């Protein structure tokens, strides 16, 4: 059984007080509690503050390009679907640069757990608005404030019939752990959007701002109804729901591809002897 110490990574380069620390804590505890060993999973991350995440624990890591976590994660799962795969990305990373991959990963329903550290800002590049920034937010490159409507990742995910759609908050570690566990245990593509205060650049969506607004979805709520889920997904502003918003039982891609149904690709030996036969196609 792994213990927390097994997950010790590099010292984080985040700002003191950053919401990312809580997410890191929640994640480490989650994998420890689920008994998952460092070598048993891979984190794919992009570029941004959030994406430094895998360096701060210990695990297989592909820290790739800004916005491109999901294709890499998809490739890994298709090559080895016995590997537990996480994609960790920022809101800019995943909803901005990488928006197209998000849409299509949901359609594919590849069994990847996507955790978006949603600080509603571009942190690493020092404070430009992200797709989830509030309308009106003023930044150096937006002197008149943001004009685009805030992206609602939950609504987007429900519209794309994403297999598992949830929202967590860095200020609610225990609840966040529960969501992480549910995402991991859920078979199918999971989007867990995590509200994460950026204490340095986002002076609007602070801990206090979130705390005043978030609430945990009532236990009676059934995340299986898509219309209901859409309604709930639209909630934002005075009240922001935390919890599982939508869930379905779609078959995962890895189980649909005949070639890998029985054995992960990476375990299948290459048999050169059959090549000669294929030459018959050409005469």
């Amino acid at each position, binding site marked *: 059984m792994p213990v927390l110490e097994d997950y010790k990574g590099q010292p984080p380069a985040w700002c003191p007080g950053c919401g990312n620390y809580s997410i890191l804590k929640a994640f480490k505890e989650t994998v420890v509690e689920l008994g998952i060993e460092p070598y*048993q999973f891979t984190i794919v991350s992009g570029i941004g503050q959030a994406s430094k995440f895998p360096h701060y624990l210990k695990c*297989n890591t592909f820290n790739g390009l800004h916005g491109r976590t999901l294709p890499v994660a998809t490739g890994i799962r298709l090559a080895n679907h016995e590997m537990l795969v996480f994609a960790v990305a920022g809101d800019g990373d995943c909803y901005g640069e990488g928006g*197209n*991959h998000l*849409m299509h990963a949901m359609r594919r329903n590849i069994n990847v757990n996507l955790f978006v550290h949603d600080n509603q800002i571009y942190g690493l590049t020092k404070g430009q608005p992200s797709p989830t920034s509030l309308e009106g937010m003023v930044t150096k490159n937006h002197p008149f404030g943001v004009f685009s409507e805030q992206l609602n990742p939950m609504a987007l995910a429900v519209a794309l019939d994403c297999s598992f759609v949830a929202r967590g908050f860095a200020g609610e570690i225990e609840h966040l752990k529960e969501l992480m566990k549910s995402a991991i245990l859920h078979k199918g593509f999971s989007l867990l959007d995590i509200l994460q205060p950026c204490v340095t650049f986002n002076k609007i969506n602070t801990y206090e701002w979130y705390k005043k607004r978030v609430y945990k979805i009532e236990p009676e709520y059934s995340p299986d109804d898509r219309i209901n889920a859409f309604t709930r997904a639209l909630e934002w502003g005075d009240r922001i729901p935390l919890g599982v918003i939508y869930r379905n039982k779609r078959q995962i891609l890895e189980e649909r591809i005949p070639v890998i149904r029985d054995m992960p690709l990476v375990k299948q030996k290459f048999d050169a002897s059959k090549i*000669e036969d294929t*030459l018959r*196609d050409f005469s």
Partner: protein
Amino acid sequence: MDYSIKIGGEAGQGIQTIGDTLAKVFSRFGYHVFTHQDYESRVRGGHNFYQIRIADHLVMTSREKIDIIVALDLDSITLHEKEVSPRGIILYDSSLIGQVPMSGEQAVARLDMPLLELATKHGNKIMVNTVATGAVLGIFRLDLQILAQILETTFQKKGREVVESNIQAALSGYNHVIAHCKTCVFPLEPETSAAKQTMMLMSGIDAIGLGALSSGCKFYAAYPMTPSTGIMNYLAGKEKEFGIVVEQAEDEIAAINMALGASFAGVRSMTGTAGGGFALMVEGLSLAGMTETPLVIALGQRAAPATGLPTRTEQGDLLFAIHSAHGEFPRIVFAPGTPEQAFSLTNKAFDLAEKYQVPVFLIFDQYIADTLWTYKTFDVNPVVWNDYRLRGEEFARLNTYKRHAFTETGVSPLGVPGEARHVVVTDSDEHDEEGHIIEDAETRNKMVQKRLMRKLPLIRCEIKEPLYYGGSNPRIVIAGWGSTYGVMKEAVDFLSKKESIGLLHFSELYPFPSPSPLTQNYFSTLKNAQFTICIENNATGQFARLMRAETGFEFHEKIHKYDGRPFLLEELAGEINARIGRL
């Protein structure tokens, strides 16, 4: 014996079926065949053609003069009549294409035959193609038996009746020619016919697919794009038999990143695209370079920039492939000149990609992708296959593991994540031996040295010299790369009757096969020649520029073609002759 047939018509009329079928018939009879295609970027209509050359000797280019035109549209006559050789003939059906205007200066033999009527008589009008195929075979008086076999295979799923009526249709075409055109006889060399061994027909694109298959490629991600889609189709057809996963990505960025993910996870992987799609993969290429993830990229050139002439050919992306992506890291670039080279270089690409953990390019083009060549056999046995990855026991046995460990060769151990308790960490940021982000100058320097400077000389040693063809000490040397091999070689054959001329063909282009004392020195051939010509299917002379950047050598002359069409034999020989004439 050396005949050329051109089948012309609109997209959707099935000229490719006629062409492919004829190529198959002749190759099964043991003749050498070469075909190339010319088509527009549309699905129906327009004017396309399919050109076949049949000979009793090795052929590897198309010629200017045509012996038989099968015209399924009027353009096939108006545009191509001037290409018909004096002995040539045009087959058509005026009930299909309308009245044909009188030909220009010199009258060309024409046979207006009732293709449609015969087709309808034996089934329906789709069978026009079969009638036309039979008619062509009639001109050659070539036994229909093999055609019948082919029709059988093609139509067996549609039932006995369809097969039979097609055979009858072919026969009717055959007989019509014999009955109505006494002069339509093209003699085939008798000794070359039945006795000879059946030939295999191989296209450039299938050779790449087959090469990937034979190299243990297990993952292919791509977004459809001419002329690369054939690789995806080929491998998709082999998914189950060979344990391959083929994934159509949402875009090219996803394609290359998926391929990198799969490679990281431990399987040989590949992506393919055309120039414009590759333009989108450039950041991913840089990622492959930084993370030292093995990857093979098939890059199909077409007439550009931008969308350009999307179904046509060009050698326009050589310098792009070599210099693409920000930052500096090693890469390998191959450009096959024949399907055989396409096969073997694909294999070498997979081997080197994994051996050195670098991206390897296979540059091809629309022309080589679509051409069909004949081979007596296609040797798939001398394929190299080493598993350079750390797996299972071997991996588990290590006490410590660092993905990017400094080593003498610069090559670090490539562990398969999950196969041992070690974690495999890599990063697009500059990193330390373990794969974690760093900022310091010292580690940066060491990593650049490891990744780039140590590996590069080793990779350079793997690069073969260019192929030299011709006599020793040639007065004239022509040089080129990739898909122009066939036409250049035949041009040398053609011209060497009168001239001392040789060919240098480059298919392993980067790292550039620099002349060195260790290797046999092709460079002296070039330097000692009195006159050198660089031949490229582009406008700016990219290879000539590469040669100068690498060696300082400058060609005396350059021949460029950039209209989206390949060089034809007489055309190229003529161009070369003209340059020699100016000497």
